[in-house]
């Protein structure tokens, strides 16, 4: 057999059948379900009298819509409440395992899956959410799907898909102080663009990736979709196996050893073919952030806002100017020192315990600048409890941050956590699209440490000045 990539191996091992036009019926090991993209799929099953084939390969949580404030009170927004209640009726009717709002295990679906050992190496994992790519950090083929496909997976435990192309992004070397997984990934997206990975699955490799902990790898794979890729992957290694060991739904004892033996066979073969290879030097990556309304608008925090006049293509020039107008920035201005109104630390990109520790290290002994609203939204109830055990909640509260309950929150503003028009936000989330965090809101994407630095200085700041 020809040498295969990690993607090829996972793909091959899940093909049930290949149809005449090369479309595969691909078997799905894990289906993650949340309240926003599932109601129409359950309704479809009901209308056609179909059953949900494998409730024991499915897990449901509420995350997108949930309030991150006091949860002992009923949910105020009627439509959000209806969507959550609809999910609760559906999981009951179809027998789907579910972590309800008041469960300690509730949280953002892409934090919960790995944390509970539900997402495992070598698996195929889908969810009606584009950031399903996060689970690729486990060495699993994980991608977002639409609601029609959610229904398809519910009914058949498979999906129809053609194989993706293989792409490898290699980051060799050692990053400098203050440079995190988020900076590495933003630098990659800045380099290849938001359509740079279209049609491809990206495998992240190289010493700088290998040295990341699982949270860092999840941040990287999470934003693969911002590079247009179908999925992101990191080959499973000892870091992965140690992370998985002992998690609630992971294999135990002999079964675990058997699983590890299999997972070790997944890494790409010597000489495996990649359709595209991109290389970056870790030493060249500095703390970065975005200035515009596309995740590819990445500049170093020491840099200046680009000038549309330097863009030759008139369409692109006009689009750059619109971004500047929307963001309330001037061409050529230094990005550091720009005042912020809100700081959001959370989302499936950066809400794990490691992210909170990084933010707390900057916040400790400092105060949130006057006039700034700074929020910490842990990724799950488990992350929140762990942080409280470590005393991080006290660090944040003493500094003047809000310490909130788990959920997607201000990443997409479906719940009451939203920017108001014109507010500028330093955000650890993944998208800076117009209106993403609330109509008229202005988002700068950056790392948890950089976000904490913005909170305590009141403006976009090079975190290296605070460490």
């Amino acid at each position: 057999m020809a040498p295969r990539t990690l993607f090829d191996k996972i793909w091959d091992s899940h093909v049930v059948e290949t149809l005449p036009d090369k479309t595969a019926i691909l078997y799905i090991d894990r289906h993650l379900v949340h309240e926003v993209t599932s109601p129409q799929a359950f309704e479809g099953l009901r209308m056609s009298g179909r059953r949900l084939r494998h409730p024991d390969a499915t897990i449901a949580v509420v995350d997108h819509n949930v309030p991150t404030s006091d949860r002992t009170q009923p949910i105020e927004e009627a439509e959000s409440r209806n969507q959550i209640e609809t999910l609760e009726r559906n999981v009951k009717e179809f027998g789907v395992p579910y972590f309800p709002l008041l469960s300690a295990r509730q949280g953002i679906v892409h934090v919960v899956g790995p944390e509970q050992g539900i997402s495992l190496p070598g698996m195929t994992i889908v969810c009606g959410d584009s950031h399903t790519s996060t689970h690729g950090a486990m060495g699993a083929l994980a991608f977002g799907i639409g609601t029609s496909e959610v229904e398809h997976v519910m009914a058949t435990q498979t999906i129809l898909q053609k194989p993706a192309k293989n792409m490898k992004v290699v980051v060799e070397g050692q990053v400098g102080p203050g440079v995190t997984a988020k900076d590495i990934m933003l630098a990659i997206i800045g380099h290849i663009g938001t359509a740079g990975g279209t049609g491809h699955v990206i495998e992240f490799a190289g010493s700088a990736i290998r040295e990341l902990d699982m949270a860092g790898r999840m941040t990287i794979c999470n934003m693969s979709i911002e590079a247009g890729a179908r999925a992101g992957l990191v080959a499973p290694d000892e870091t992965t196996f140690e992370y998985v060991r002992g998690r609630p739904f992971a294999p135990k004892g002999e079964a675990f050893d058997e699983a590890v033996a299999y997972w070790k066979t997944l890494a790409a073969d010597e000489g495996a073919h990649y359709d595209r290879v991109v290389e970056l030097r870790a030493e060249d990556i500095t703390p970065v952030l975005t200035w515009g309304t596309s995740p590819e608008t990445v500049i170093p925090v020491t840099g200046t806002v680009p000038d549309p006049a330097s863009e030759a293509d008139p369409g692109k020039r006009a689009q750059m100017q619109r971004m500047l107008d929307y963001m309330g920035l001037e061409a050529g201005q230094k990005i550091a020192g720009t005042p912020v109104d809100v700081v959001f630390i959370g989302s499936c990109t950066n809400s794990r315990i490691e992210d909170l520790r990084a933010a707390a290290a900057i916040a400790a002994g400092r105060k949130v600048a006057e006039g700034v609203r700074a929020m910490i939204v842990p990724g799950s109830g488990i992350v929140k409890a762990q942080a409280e055990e470590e005393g991080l909640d006290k660090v944040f509260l003493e500094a003047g941050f809000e310490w909130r309950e788990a959920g997607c929150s201000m990443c997409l503003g479906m719940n009451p956590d939203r920017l108001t028009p014109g507010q500028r936000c330093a955000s650890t989330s993944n998208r800076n699209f117009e209106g993403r965090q609330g109509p008229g809101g202005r988002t700068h994407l950056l790392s948890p440490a950089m976000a904490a630095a913005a909170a305590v200085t009141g403006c976009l700041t090079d975190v290296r000045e605070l460490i």
Partner: protein
Amino acid sequence: MDKFTVLSAVAAPLPEENIDTDKIIPARFLKTTKRTGLGVHAFDSMRYRADGSENPDFVLNQEPYRKAEILITYDNLGCGSSREHAPWALLDFGIRCVIAPSFADIFHNNCFKNGILPIVLPHDVCTQLMEDARMGGNARLTIDLPRQVVVRPDGTEVPFNVDPLRKKLLLEGLDDIGQTLQHEKEITTFEERRAQAQPWIPRIVLD
């Protein structure tokens, strides 16, 4: 799902790159539990001003484009969130065909699942079709799926590619779950084989 065969309709030009699905339908409108009714919110931030009134500069607020069934844009249409609410909003507005030089993968897929035909054509051809579309209400484009051509107002034809299986499903208005369930025996065999080879794969069962 409605069949898609030949569509002769007004096309709206929207000459922008990277139109993300948040722009097509912002997250605050995703609280519905239905597939219909989202058309009024399609392109909300471009279509309406802060006071809720229509923005007269936006193409879909202008005649004849209020009745557009075809949308033409530039690269990477539908990037970002996987929300199928984006094609649902387009469909509910009346759009049955989207034309762009390139599409984001998930959106591209979601269009087919809802009877919307996404057509990939080179950038300069998209520019030409936008110019056709700007000629007004009589300048209709015809999308002939069986023959795989776009017929311009002057009668010239632009051929396009479409995946044969997806073409078949669109022409017949078929739901692909039924199609896959014809392979149920193979799925069951696959499951049995895996259970033997990898017995360690855990089931998710809550206490």
